């Protein structure tokens, strides 16, 4: 399998690096402080291919904490609020879009 670092990086706007936490698979975002957060607003925003490559490289280096880091698009709304840039990332952040069967509490 091609390493994420060997893949061609294309970004069309503000982007972040996201992955899943190794121990439980929870969605996580790479922060500017070289760590991970489950909160999208904590994510480091990159805007150039070079920045994205560097953020991805440090994310991939943390093989113990995270699985499958990749670059994902985000939108920066008025006031600086960060939103997922596509449906896939929206679902990863907000959860499934469907009505589940009712499960008793």
């Amino acid at each position, binding site marked *: *399998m091609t390493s994420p670092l060997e893949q061609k990086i294309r970004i069309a706007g503000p982007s972040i690096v996201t992955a*899943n936490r*190794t*121990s*439980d*698979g*929870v*969605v996580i975002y790479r922060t500017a402080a070289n760590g991970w957060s489950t909160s999208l607003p904590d994510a480091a925003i990159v805007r150039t291919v070079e920045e994205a490559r560097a953020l991805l490289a440090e994310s991939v280096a943390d*093989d*113990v904490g995270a*699985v*499958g880091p990749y670059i994902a698009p985000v939108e920066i709304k008025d006031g600086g609020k960060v939103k997922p840039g*596509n*449906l*896939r990332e929206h*679902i*990863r952040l907000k*959860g*499934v*879009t*469907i*009505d*589940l*069967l*009712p*499960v*008793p509490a």
Partner: protein
Amino acid sequence: MYAYDELDRTLINERVEEFRDQVKRRLSGELTEDEFKMLRLQNGVYLQLHAYMFRVAIPYGTLSSKQLRRLAHVARRYDRGYGHFTTRQNIQFNWIKLAELPDALADLAEVGIHAMQTSGNNTRNVTSDQWAGVAPGEIEDPRIWSELLRQYTTLHPEFSFLPRKFKFAITASAHDRAAIKVHDIGLRLHKNAQGETGFEVLVGGGLGRTPFIGKTIKPFVPGRDLLSYVEAILRVYNQYGRRDNIYKARIKILVHELGIEKFAAEVEDEWLAMRDSALTLDDAVVEEIRSRFSYPAYQKLPHMPEELKQAAHDPLFERWRKNSVFTHKVQGYAIVTLSLKPVGGPPGDATAEQMDAVADLADKYSFGEIRVGHEQNLALPHVAKRDLPALWKALDKVGLATPNVNLVSDIIACPGLDYCSLANARSIPIAQELTRRFANHDTADLIGRLHINISGCINACGHHHVGHIGILGVEKNGEEFYQITIGGRADENAELGVLIGPAVPYGEVADVVEDIVEAYLALRARPDELFVDTVKRLGVEPFRERVYATR
């Protein structure tokens, strides 16, 4: 039910401890993800959008009530209270934590359940007819041969690192409920002119990116030669199958590129060199496996008990009975399908409470046995007809008596983009909307048998190619679009559906399906001409015209 012996139990328990150690080493950093990935896949553990997904095997779709209760326990203890029954007689849990997986596996191992070979490039969970052993007219119980193949292929070193995954399906009935023609190897038990029992062997079927209907490679292989013949096929595949391109690595591509005659000749050469070997099955081996299946002590019961006559006056019961109750090989008994397709529900999902309830009802009414079908429904295979009214009431209380089996809202759907990391588009919300559109039972009954299959990507876990109406999610410029095919079918007359035109956006899919169904109702030759037969008779053009004339 098949009773595992000490060897099986030891194997499963040792596997749990092996995986526990692998998980521990992964979490400590001793194993990298690259090193660990293959190990987790071989234990049914994927990484999906939100979490790890854990796929558990239900070999040939047979479960005991004790096993189903344990699956409910896993759903409740380690997941979010529900599970998803798949199109290959597995169950998936969507929110499992890696750190807790060894405990979940250990809990399952206590009741003889495992996740071996539910993923990875090996021989996968062997599937069969969910009515095996109870279907009228069946040649013999195909689960005996399914179990034989399960034992033979489990952890088989030669088949653990194949070019790609490899799937078997077996049926012993004239009507194919196991979709054998869309499997890598499909096996149909039948009798030859001499009255001997053996297998028609089909090879190279499959869906996904490049769908093919399987072709008969040998019309009759005696039971004693099953393993040697299957091994010959797998050896030819192992030798010539492509490992350089994941999209061309399945056996169907090899069969297509070599041609069925050349492929068959290669297999025959291989087989003749090995057929009279240790792989030849003597009767004692088959009988040993047969003896480990237990069958109910059926009573002599009337064909039409008084309880059933009385209940027939209730139109709601009759509606359910007509669509959910099927003929059993033993007089006085019935096979009951439990729809996991409630209006507005995710197809194939069941809560832990529903699983527990079904286990209780199986104990009470079906000799403690449950079946799982590739259509993502459950079945109780041994219900006395006199118990049908009471069973219906009990099922209705837990939301499992939706009277839509084989009707338009009995939809097959993969998890799609709501869960799956491979998906391009959502499947489940499309299915949910369609079940709402066709919620009126009188309308669904008027339409008759109609299978809608939905996949969220070209990998086709929702079997869209063989849906009477197939829906495939694709992504176009960041938006969800759906290609619609019609005329597919997965039975003994299996065919691939034909694309009717350009993909339509998410918001139009239900309207398009309604248009197709309305066209069918106007075009069918008579009320009992099935949708798929009307398409066969007329082709796709009238449907295409109806859908795209105003779009």
